[in-house]
């Protein structure tokens, strides 16, 4: 290891000791690899061998995990890794100039590590900061509202040895984890509704739940009409009823805090501002289904929020609201650990999230069996979104009817919307279900919108003629992302960007999602270059249909949505970009591209296609 740059620790991470600190438990593989990555800035072959030996796995199994997650690296990374978010919102907020400023100041390009081992520059998909883009992660901390100037100053300060933490949280020492987080990232609460973001009495819901039987709790949640807030919208009470039924030695409650859908950041705000409400909701769920163990799966991008959660958990343990005999109640023992993710959108899928908690690559599980019957470690498991658990705590406080009466038929209560893009007031809005897109645009100052992406890339893109559609489960379902684009934005650029996202994030387990999405991305590239002909419209439709009908999980079944919903709602854009081939032959085959490599090798130039053949 003599080639290690001098500013890094001379000794590599003590992998056996790290494994031992997690009881050599292979299910804690993500935690083990995080510790090694943090210390060494990569997972070396020697580390993988050592982890394999300590956990009883083979080296290839450890590599399977380490190579799956974006935040683990099999090549040495810099002491400071800057991950600039390259979501389309960041692109429209001036990403290119910020990127150029970082490159010129640090003297390295994206995807590179400086020769002295000081810095790595990378792009990363949405980090949940679209309301304050462009944003970046510097190791585990966040910097937002970047300008080229600000980026340059940050890079210079880092070069001077200022710690990322000191840059992100400047000034006096923060009083607590919450203050530390909010000085890094604004919560941007634009509208507080009745349920979550308004005043919330501490543990009123848990107090009521303790006086109820588990069956009564489940009935209350069912009667409230609450449906999952992560995007899929499954009826929460029914999920709990399944998980509570039947015999089981152990049961688990898992919170999905892996909001990776580009344009979604409402859970960030709840984790920051309502950590106690979330844990209260999880504790109620534990009582309802009979779970003693819980996990909060926190996306790797939100590592900066881990101290907020740990502080809340510690406080509740100290108060007797978590741990053995909660609030003196002999029948309720429940505790929670935080599982940090490592950069994989697919882990927002229930089964993939469970795989990840088990220390495996984040691949969805075969269904059936469903997690409510065989989930984490094979035991019945309830997985709910952050917002869902928070709603539960409020429903137990105020009653099922109170919640049911808000919203509209089939979509009850309030919903947090993460609003970003071309509007005056990006941020989080808590509104009852049932508003039209037009009404929401008026609330957020987005009246100039030409297109709105509802529910993120996996949702629906609509144009002005559809702004009267309603934000409900039955019309425009959404996990909360509302991304607004004005008339100057290029729809096909957005579509191509989103398809690249899905290609990057597909786990690769099943054929249609792994391969089909690559073809779809390439096809959209053809449209953008003006090389498509009318038959290509049928081609992308049919390809999309195959991907949707044969994919194994929700990622694959929604990945073609950017293409399909824009084909439906913006057909003229596609029509304008296609032209029939002059010779009547479909030009799927680009002969110039195909012979390019051979031409270079043979050093034979084309006077038509090679402007400069010196390269």
């Amino acid at each position, binding site marked *: 290891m003599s080639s290690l740059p001098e500013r890094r620790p001379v000794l590599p991470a003590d992998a056996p000791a790290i494994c031992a600190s997690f009881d050599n438990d292979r299910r804690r593989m993500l935690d083990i690899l995080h510790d090694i990555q943090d210390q060494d800035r990569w997972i070396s072959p020697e580390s993988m061998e050592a982890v394999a030996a300590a956990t009883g796995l*083979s*080296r*290839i*199994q450890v*590599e*399977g995990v380490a*190579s*799956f*997650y974006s935040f683990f690296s099999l090549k040495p990374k810099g002491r400071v890794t800057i991950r600039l978010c390259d979501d389309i919102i960041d692109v429209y907020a001036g990403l290119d100039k910020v990127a150029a400023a970082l490159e010129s100041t640090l003297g390295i390009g994206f995807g590179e590590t400086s020769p002295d081992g000081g810095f790595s520059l990378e792009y990363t998909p949405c980090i949940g900061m679209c309301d304050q883009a462009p944003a970046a992660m510097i190791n585990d901390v966040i910097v937002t509202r970047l300008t080229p100037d600000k980026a340059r100053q940050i890079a210079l300060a880092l070069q001077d040895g200022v710690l990322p933490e000191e840059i992100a949280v400047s000034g006096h020492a923060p009083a607590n984890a919450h203050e530390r987080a909010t000085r890094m990232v604004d919560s941007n609460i634009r509208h507080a509704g009745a349920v979550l973001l308004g005043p919330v009495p501490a543990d009123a819901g848990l107090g009521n739940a303790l006086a109820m039987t588990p069956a009564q709790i489940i009935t209350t949640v069912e009667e409230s009409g609450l449906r999952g807030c992560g995007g899929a919208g499954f009826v929460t009470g029914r999920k709990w009823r399944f998980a509570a039924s039947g015999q089981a030695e152990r049961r688990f409650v898992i919170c999905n805090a892996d909001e990776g859908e580009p344009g979604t950041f409402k859970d960030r705000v709840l984790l920051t501002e309502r950590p106690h409400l979330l844990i209260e909701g999880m504790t109620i769920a534990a009582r309802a289904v009979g779970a003693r163990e819980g996990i909060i799966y926190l996306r790797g991008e939100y590592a900066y929020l881990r101290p907020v959660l740990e502080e809340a958990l510690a406080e509740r343990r100290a108060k007797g609201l978590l741990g053995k005999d909660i609030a003196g109640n002999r029948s309720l023992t429940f505790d929670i650990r935080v599982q940090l993710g490592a950069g*994989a959108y697919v882990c927002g899928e229930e089964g993939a999230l469970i795989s990840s908690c088990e220390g495996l*690559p984040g691949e969805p599980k*075969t269904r*059936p069996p469903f997690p409510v019957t065989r989930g984490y470690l094979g035991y019945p498991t309830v997985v709910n979104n952050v917002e869902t658990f928070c709603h539960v705590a409020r429903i137990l406080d105020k009653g099922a009817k109170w919640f049911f009466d808000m919203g509209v038929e089939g979509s009850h209560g309030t919903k947090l919307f993460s609003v970003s893009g071309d509007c005056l007031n990006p941020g989080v809005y808590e509104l009852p279900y049932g508003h039209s897109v037009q009404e929401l645009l008026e609330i957020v100052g987005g009246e100039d919108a030409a297109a709105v992406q509802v529910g993120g890339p996996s949702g629906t893109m609509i144009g002005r003629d559809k702004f009267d559609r309603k934000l409900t489960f039955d019309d425009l379902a959404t996990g909360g992302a509302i991304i607004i684009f004005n008339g100057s934005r290029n729809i096909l650029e957005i579509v191509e960007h989103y398809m690249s996202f899905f*290609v*990057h*994030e*597909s*786990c*690769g*387990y*099943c*054929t*249609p999602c*792994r*391969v*089909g999405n*690559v*073809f779809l991305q*390439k096809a959209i590239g053809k449209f953008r270059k003006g090389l498509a002909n009318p038959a290509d419209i049928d*081609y992308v439709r*049919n*390809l999309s249909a*195959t991907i949707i*009908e*044969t*994919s*194994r999980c929700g990622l694959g079944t929604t990945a073609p949505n950017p293409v399909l919903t824009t084909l439906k709602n913006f057909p003229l854009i596609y029509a304008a970009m296609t032209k029939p081939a002059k010779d009547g032959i479909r030009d*799927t085959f680009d002969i110039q591209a195909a012979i390019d490599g051979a031409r270079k090798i043979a050093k034979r130039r084309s006077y038509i296609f090679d402007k400069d053949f010196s390269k």
Partner: protein
Amino acid sequence: MSVLDDGGTRRDTSFTFTIDGMEVRAQPGQTIMEAADAAGIYIPRLCDHEGLRHQGSCRVCTVKVGGRSVSACTQPASPGQGVEAETPHLTRLRRDLVEMLMHEGNHFCPMCEASGNCELQAMAYRLEMVEPTKFPYLEPNRDLDASHPDIALDTNRCISCGRCIRASQDVDGKGLFGYVGRGIRRRVAVNGPDLARTEAAITDHAVSSEVCPVGCIIRKRVGFRVPIGEREFDKGLIGHDIEEKRNG
């Protein structure tokens, strides 16, 4: 299958469901595909292989149950369900999937040792993939691993079915292979710097000619011993062995 009921008498627990309108008998716990195989109905598949854990990744066995797509190799059969297994629409979906695999790797049948024994090629014939294909070629360029004295690996022909992974893990108890990477970069890799520096042996089930469906795992010095024209799928369509159970 039969179980003893409370009264101590044997009771038959098998049940029936239909595949394309034909009544099929199944045992509790059987998948749709297992029941179909037993009844002599062939549902196309690539990643599933007799004696190995079901994986459900190639999706070629996609069937419709109540209008929903499920993989027949992992979906439990249930009493009274109606399964659509062979319709023009499903054949088109399967052909698309086989074409995707053909285009993801480098599959030059005329110069491949596996030609005639290759399940991917045979599946393409069965699904009548007889027109020029429409997808772009991804043309991987991975190194050939010929380090082992008896076995060579050309992962440019790998279709990520993972049969070798499961065979080595579960049958041989060696864990020679594993998946690494994610998405389109996900691939099968060996548990060592190269195959020679693993526990691989020519007697492993994982490297036997029946486990790798394509020409990725190659046994040295036996190539072309059986001439083209006399190979397995030169004699009949893939799946004929299962379908013969019904006819015979």
